């Protein structure tokens, strides 16, 4: 039997023990790619993205029973994914011996280590520039530029006012422009 794609119906099925696992599998299939790319752009490496993604879905499984249906499922999942990514980056920063603000920071090196990396191409320069943004500003830029998320939904995901998000996005774009022009 084919499962519905609607979030509310999937949540109803998840609350039934008989259909719980199937409903969650449907949620996984529906959101895994979007969430993966969001996490991947934050943490850069596939292995790290895979760890963070699996971890966030385990947390979603545990928390979904208490999920309030007045908010959207996908913004709730994005919030978990963003928080998990930021926590992962924070842990990496603590373990690292070098400063993350340094020119040769860990994420920059990871991008340069990619087999497809081409420093002359603008899209790769954009990725290098994004890694120089502060973590939360990076999340704002990625959600808006790559995920094309409206500010109202970003406000729910990042628990920040729309005005603050617009200002943060503006600053992020200006910093990226400066980086690209200087490199």
């Amino acid at each position, binding site marked *: 039997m084919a499962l519905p794609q609607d979030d509310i119906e999937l949540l109803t099925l998840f609350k039934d023990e008989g259909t719980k696992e199937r409903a*969650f599998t449907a949620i*996984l299939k529906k959101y895994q790619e979007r969430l993966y*790319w969001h996490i991947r752009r934050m943490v850069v490496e596939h292995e790290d993205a895979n760890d963070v993604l699996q971890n966030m879905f*385990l947390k979603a499984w545990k928390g979904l029973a208490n999920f309030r249906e007045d908010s959207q499922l996908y913004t709730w999942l994005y919030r978990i994914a963003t928080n998990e990514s930021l926590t992962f980056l924070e842990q990496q920063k603590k373990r690292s011996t070098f400063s993350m603000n340094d020119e040769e920071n860990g994420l920059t090196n990871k991008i340069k280590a990619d087999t497809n990396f081409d420093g002359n191409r603008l899209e790769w*320069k954009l990725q290098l520039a994004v890694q120089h943004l502060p973590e939360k500003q990076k999340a704002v830029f990625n959600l808006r530029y790559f995920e094309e998320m409206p500010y109202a939904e970003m406000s729910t995901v990042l628990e920040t006012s729309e005005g603050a998000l617009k200002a943060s996005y503006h600053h992020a774009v200006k910093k990226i422009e400066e980086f690209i022009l200087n490199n």
Partner: protein
Amino acid sequence: MSNREDILVEIKSISVTVAAIPFVNVFHVDDAYFSTLPEIIIAHINAGNAFTSTKNLAVPEGYFESLAANILNKIYAHENGVAAELSEISPLLADIENKETYKVPESYFNNLTFVGEQPETAKVISLSNPRSFFKYAAAAVITGLLGLSIVNIVDNNKAVDPLITTAETTLGSTQQNSLALNGNFDEALKNISDNEIEQYLQKNGQDVNAALVASSTDEVDRLPEASDYLLDENTLENYLKQNNFKN
């Protein structure tokens, strides 16, 4: 979701440079990744649930019966590990007894000391330092003497004896000068009346009678020498008669 066109319009208003960057996903992932991911995550969830549910169950059957034997086997395996390894590499070396060929003098290690090594002795810390007591005692004595001297000087300056004042006024400056120049105390004293001397002694708490006796003995002639007694047996008699000591 916002339209891609909306995002581009917005970004152009902020930066034309960034808006000109091609919207390309530079990262890659295997095609099979997303097809297998749900199964992997569900397996993790089930494994987590299984682990949680079996956490409080009893240990595997026969676990404790075989536990001691298993531990001993591991110990023997560890101990025999070196010998087994050596016999595998070189049976010849393994056959040689593991005995120490070199010898050291008896009780060498018990008396072993290193150059410059000193036997450790515990530091002795006295409970009290006697020098410090004498130091404080000496300081107290000096302070006391200084205090007494100051009090004495102050008192002397404050209380000028009225008798001396009287004597000074009685003697007059000429007599004082002659007294100072000649040192003739007897003559100076003749000019002071007996009453004045008696008052002075009484004021200063002196025994007047004793003072009179002392003053009279001062005036008597020199006592006979020891040889005088040998020459004349009446020496003492004569001396007493001469000084009116005999009743």
